[in-house]
């Protein structure tokens, strides 16, 4: 096969333009496909990051108040509501909170190790909840203890209630105390009053999933505070396995039965985690699908282009093929010729394509805060395009190999 390369090169010189065009097309396709695949991988990784909670059985109710209540009045109602919700037959547990994981935006707080530290060590997503919080969300406690009921206090809208104890995620604990000795230590949340870590949970996804939060992914903390904001709160319910639909029907009815002066939106007021995920990762799903479509169309068009142009070359060279066959070349030789020719063009194309792919990625990194392309995707793209080229050229090459030696004697 190596012997064939020289005649192939000299033949290619005869139709430079066509070869260059296929090479260029392969290069551009490679550049775009590498980056598109990489974007898909990034998005899929983002949206499949674990939440640490029992998503299948959770329900979130956004409960706003139609009355203008004080914190005390609100808290009385919240406690009544919670008792009623926890008594529902299908409900495993329930909690009132300010937010829920993957809400999209929420409350985060800089965390420091000393009260006068100027650059924060962590940026924690803040959850409020009583001693039922961990059980309701299904978050696993890995060290320390849960809150005691006597530690829980109500908190109204924008009230400064500093709790002396907190439970943090393992990620936050490790970031604050890399030596692994976080339990019992004091931390500061932008005030001079310390709060002591009494428990550490395994994984608890943050409220925001935006780019800035990714630097502080999985940094969450819980304060033993019962949300009693006069503007509105969230009830998070954990249904017993298989009871989610039933709970969904009963819960809102139960809440209205406690007090009608509340607002639970018909459209989006009650969400399960399928819906919450859909909302939170909307643009990630979208980009992944879009990039997938683009890749498929690009590869199809490039393959079709190779088929078209090679078919043309085959029909142009029927006579030469006939002569070669008449002079003793086997069908395999002819097949090999076209396959090798394509391989040479493709190799040139992917070489240029790798350069283009990396250049394009670097540009995207500077303009759109994307990550560096990993070489794995470049290699995968190279392999994909070489195989695509060989696959596309196969049909015309087989047709070429079937050209009969008699063609040599025919004039066109």
């Amino acid at each position: 096969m190596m012997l064939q390369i020289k005649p192939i090169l000299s033949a290619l010189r005869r139709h430079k333009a066509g070869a260059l065009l296929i090479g260029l097309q392969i290069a551009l396709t490679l550049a775009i496909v590498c980056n598109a695949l990489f974007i898909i991988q990034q998005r899929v990784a983002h949206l499949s990051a674990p939440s640490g909670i029992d998503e299948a059985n959770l329900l979130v109710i956004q409960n706003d108040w139609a009355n203008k209540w004080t914190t005390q009045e609100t808290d009385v109602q919240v406690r009544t509501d919670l008792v009623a919700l926890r008594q529902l037959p299908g409900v495993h547990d329930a909690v009132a909170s300010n937010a829920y994981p993957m809400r999209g935006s929420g409350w985060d707080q800089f965390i420091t190790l000393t009260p006068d530290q100027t650059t924060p060590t962590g940026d924690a997503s803040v959850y409020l909840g009583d001693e039922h919080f961990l059980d309701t969300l299904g978050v696993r406690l890995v060290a320390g203890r849960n809150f005691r009921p006597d530690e829980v206090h109500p908190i109204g809208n924008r009230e400064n209630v500093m709790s002396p104890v907190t439970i943090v995620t393992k990620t936050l604990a490790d970031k604050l105390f890399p030596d692994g000795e976080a339990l019992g230590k004091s931390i500061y949340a932008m005030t001079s009053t310390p709060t002591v870590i009494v428990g550490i949970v395994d994984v608890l996804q943050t409220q925001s999933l935006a780019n800035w939060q990714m630097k502080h992914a999985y940094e969450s903390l819980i304060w033993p505070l019962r949300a009693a904001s006069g503007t509105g709160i969230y009830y998070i319910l954990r249904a017993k396995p298989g009871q989610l639909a039933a709970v969904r029907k009963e819960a809102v009815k139960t809440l209205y039965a406690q007090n009608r002066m509340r607002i639970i939106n018909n459209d989006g007021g009650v969400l399960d985690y399928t819906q919450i995920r859909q909302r939170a990762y909307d643009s990630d799903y979208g980009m992944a699908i879009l990039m997938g479509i683009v890749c498929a169309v690009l590869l199809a068009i490039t393959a079709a282009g190779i088929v078209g142009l090679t078919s043309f070359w085959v029909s142009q060279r029927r006579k030469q093929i006939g002569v070669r066959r008449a002079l003793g070349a086997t069908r395999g030789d002819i097949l090999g010729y076209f396959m090798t020719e394509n391989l040479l063009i493709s190799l040139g194309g992917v070489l240029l394509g790798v350069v283009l792919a990396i250049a394009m990625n670097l540009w995207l990194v500077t303009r759109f805060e994307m990550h560096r392309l990993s070489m794995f995707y470049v290699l995968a793209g190279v392999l994909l395009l070489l195989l695509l080229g060989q696959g596309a050229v196969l049909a015309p090459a087989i047709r070429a190999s079937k050209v009969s030696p008699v063609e040599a004697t025919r004039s066109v």
Partner: protein
Amino acid sequence: MFSYYLDLAVRSLKRSPGLTALMVLAIGFGVAASMTTWSVFRAVSGDPIPWKSSKLFVPQIDVWGPQGRSSDGEPPNAMAYPDAMVLMRDHRAKLQSAMYQISPSVVPAQAGRHPLNVSGHAVYSEFFPMLDVPFLYGSGWNASDDTQRTAVVVISSKLNQKLFAGANSVGKTLNIESKDYRVVGVLDNWNPQPRYYDVVNSGGFSATGEDVFLPFERAIEVGMSNDGNTNCNAVPAESGFVGLQHSNCVWIAYMAQLDDAAAVTAYRNYLDGYAHAQQQAGRFGWAVNNRLRDLPAFLDNQHVVPSDTKVSLLVAIGLLLVCLVNTVGLLLAKFLRRSGEIGVRRALGAPRSAIYAQFLTEAGIIGAAGGVLGLLLTGVGVACVGWVLPKSIATLARLDLPLLALTLLVAVVATLLAGLYPTSRAARVQPAWQLKSN
């Protein structure tokens, strides 16, 4: 002659239907992908108030100092209450308004109707003339309502439809957070995209419009809490909404109308003077670091156009480029296959320009066919864009006449460009060579 070339082109295209279909498909897909993403990009990057955007300015005051700045040295993108109130009191611009996002509950007058939550903004009276807000009935309130904290409200036509069955409700009463407000105006359909008067809170785009606008100081007086972003560099010293007002937390949007360069300079000097005074008073311990950007510059600075939209557009243009390279190659093959025919035409006296005309006509037909396919696919694309983009953005993409015209134009022009090189190769065919070999 053109109709003759047309006839020739159609015959030639029919001779190799596979190749023709491939080129038309490639052009169609490439153009449709570009046009669909373009329609989204056009929608999100458009100027929401083109007749006035260069006169609308967003002041930013560095209330936190170096510790609170973003990595590029930018001051906070919203204002703290004390600063916003001084700016409103000094009233140095022609028109101006501080504003904050609210989400109050409304209790319908009809018995048995459920209370509902509405979204809106607390604003000053100059908000309405400054932004040329269109009214269906009535108008905004006046400056004395601002200072007297009158219980008045401007509602959207949608809320008017819901509560007053679309009738003229000016003068009627609305129960907001358990207090009665007099309706002074009903908006015509008004939901500018991006929501430029408060992009910090809306994130730019929102499929549903706002329902209520109340006097700012009235909302503060009744303790109507803000519903938007609140950013703090320290926990407020006091609790509650009042504590927020006394703090350096930023949560207020601000906009001012400045009609000419002199007014802009004067306002910039005023802002710097204010920061200097705060420095002297010991509140700001750092050099003046204010910003005063006009609306287009502020929208750009806030990255209102999502980067996903830009990346999608770029990738789609890349796809079109590959499709064009593909078409160049196929046209080249197609044209050169007919070298014999070209040779005969040239030998019989056809000038090069005739060859150009003939083959560019053929390229043009492919472009037109690709364009028609592109139109269909763009239609499908715009209809399905909700699948892949967030709803608030996808609903902005529209199929309109300029987009359709552009689709056809791009398809034909791009294909003609792609046809130029193959055509020039065809025109350079040596008649003698071709005639000899046959």
